[in-house]
């Protein structure tokens, strides 16, 4: 244990952690992780150009994930770091994957948008808007048939609300009474198009109700409200009453790292960023009598944890070129022939 950890342990031993404090700690981990991912990008250490941060949306990830249980499965959209972290992901392996390193969750082949860990029930992040949604119907079907008691949760953004696959999937989940929950993290923007520029029907949960699901919209400012609502919906889903939850929040930054948000005003951003679920929770904890100093120590330990993740990612090796042909097919199947090998074979003739 380092000094910070010893100090933290004393604090923890001295008093009982409140639920809110735990939710705060998880949200802070997401926030700090995302900030570090942003730095990784700025330093040119991330793999590729596609990075979508969930800063401002932490209450949705943490609130819903804290209502899930071990054995539950889930899929996420392209802005899913926070959800994965909230379900217990190892930040080192996440950061390494985002940096495209061999030590990452997917051996550097998936990256930010295709990160997954079957061991944690993460059936995959997805770079196609709505693409990961129907998989939870299949997972729900398997859970129902196997009577496992597990649920499967699809996380997606408001952009996916206008994708047909969502309605096909919700319809099947309702029709077959599946243990499934659909969670829309409504950060107000599908890339640069605001939700009210994408649809007239902005009461998103009403669409799910129309299909026979439980449907609720909740303000994401207060993580406790999100958690309580999600708990009710997951309890229902577990007994075969599928649900839909829309969590309203504000995407603090652009769609991806290169996006300077030309489609919205500075005033709007300033107002939007005031709706900060992390600071809101922090203020409430202080009102409960916890000192700033205690919270600073928590923040610092998280900062240290994420610094280590960055170090791990940067010091890891990229995958070898030969791994390119691995895992196209199952483990005992022949790998595809490399183009160069083929050319050499053809041109080797007399």
């Amino acid at each position, binding site marked *: 244990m380092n000094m910070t950890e010893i100090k933290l342990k004393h604090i923890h031993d001295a008093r009982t952690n409140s639920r809110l404090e735990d939710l705060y700690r998880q949200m802070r981990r997401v926030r700090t992780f995302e900030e570090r991912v942003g730095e990784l990008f700025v330093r040119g250490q991330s793999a590729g150009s596609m990075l979508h941060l969930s800063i401002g949306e932490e209450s949705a990830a943490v609130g819903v994930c804290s209502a899930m249980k071990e054995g539950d499965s889930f899929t996420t959209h392209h802005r899913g770091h926070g959800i994965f972290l909230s379900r217990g992901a190892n930040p080192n392996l996440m950061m390494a994957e985002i940096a495209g390193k061999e030590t990452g969750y997917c051996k550097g082949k998936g990256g930010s948008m295709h990160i997954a860990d*079957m061991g944690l029930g993460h059936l995959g992040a997805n770079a196609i808007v709505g693409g990961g949604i129907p998989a939870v119907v*299949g997972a729900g079907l398997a859970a129902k048939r196997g009577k496992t008691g597990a649920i499967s949760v699809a996380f997606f953004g408001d952009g996916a609300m206008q994708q047909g696959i969502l309605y096909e999937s919700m319809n099947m989940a309702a029709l077959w009474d599946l243990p499934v929950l659909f969670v829309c993290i409504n950060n107000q923007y599908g890339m640069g198009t605001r939700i009210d520029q994408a649809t007239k029907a902005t009461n998103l949960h009403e669409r799910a109700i129309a299909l026979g699901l439980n449907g609720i919209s909740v303000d994401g400012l207060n993580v406790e409200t999100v958690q309580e609502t999600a708990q009710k919906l997951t309890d229902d889903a577990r007994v075969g009453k599928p649900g839909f939850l829309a969590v309203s929040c504000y995407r603090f930054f652009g769609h991806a790292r290169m996006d300077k948000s030309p489609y919205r005003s500075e005033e709007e951003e300033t107002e939007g960023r005031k709706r900060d679920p992390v600071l809101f929770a922090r203020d409430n904890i202080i009102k409960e009598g916890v000192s700033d100093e205690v919270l600073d120590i928590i923040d610092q330990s998280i900062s240290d944890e994420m610094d280590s993740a960055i170090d791990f990612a940067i010091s890891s090796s990229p995958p070898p070129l030969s791994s390119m042909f691995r895992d*196209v097919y199952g483990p005992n199947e022949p790998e595809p022939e490399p183009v160069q090998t083929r050319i050499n074979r053809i041109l080797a003739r007399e």
Partner: protein
Amino acid sequence: MVELTYRDALRQALYDAMIEDESIFIIGEEVGRYGGAYGVTKGLIDKFGPERLLDTPISEPAIIGTAIGAAMSGLRPVAELMYVDFIGMTMDQLGNQAAKIRYMFGGQIGVPLVLRTQGGAGRSAGAQHSQSLEAFIMHTPGLRLAMPATVSDAYHLLRQSLTKPDPVVFIEHKSLYSLKEDVDLSIEPLPWGKAAVRRHGSDIVIVTYSRQLQFVMQAAQALSKQNIEATVIDLRTLNPLDFDTIRKEVEKVGKVLVVSEAVLTSGVASELSARISEECFDYLTDPVVRVAGEDCPISVSADLEAGSIPSPKVIEETAKRLVM
């Protein structure tokens, strides 16, 4: 020996596999109570119940997506896509999800689903219900592709598909469902991924698959009466592709015809032709010739329909010109 139709053989394969493996279930439009648009799953619901013959709404993308999630959760789904022409509806789930999940996630998990569908001309079904779209699948690494041309293969290739670790697209031909053959299903089949040499001859090699095998065999018999003997290769699976068998036979003969019902441009026949030209260059005495579907949509008119795909006569005449 027992006389079976292609349709019966497929049903028998599903039946036998479902008895042996409880994780197998069938999901799709009209697969249960209706028994499948072409009758392949008829009666299976009486034996296995609605839980294993899951009738769905008309939602092709979510049918495949649900099958993917189920396959990732320990089940072995057989998803039915009523017509291969609808594959465009499902191409995200098939091409971006099923085909890439193992790879993108670093080999953590596979998607062992079988997508049964049917394609091809022959029933005046028009431009949106008669196509041969196998090139879409063959062009997507991660997807296996089987296209049975015989009753025996309808059974065995489907059984084999249901043991594979990866997604298999299994394309039946609508004009083969009533094909009858005497088969002994207890005879050990060719291994998965191996082409069948259906006929040996020293004058020309004809490479084909699916229903065109029937046309090619008719052409080969007509050629034989004119003292032209053809080797006929039935590929059976297009991924994996058994190029070794093609190479071996082409090197013996030097003249090759590739026959496919799909439209000519950028089709499976094009890929086969390119490979044969590259890899068997020193053994070829003539250009590799493709006999394929015309580069236009398929009409409802039976005459236009038949005229837009290879016929036994055209195959025979083309082979003759190549040999002469």
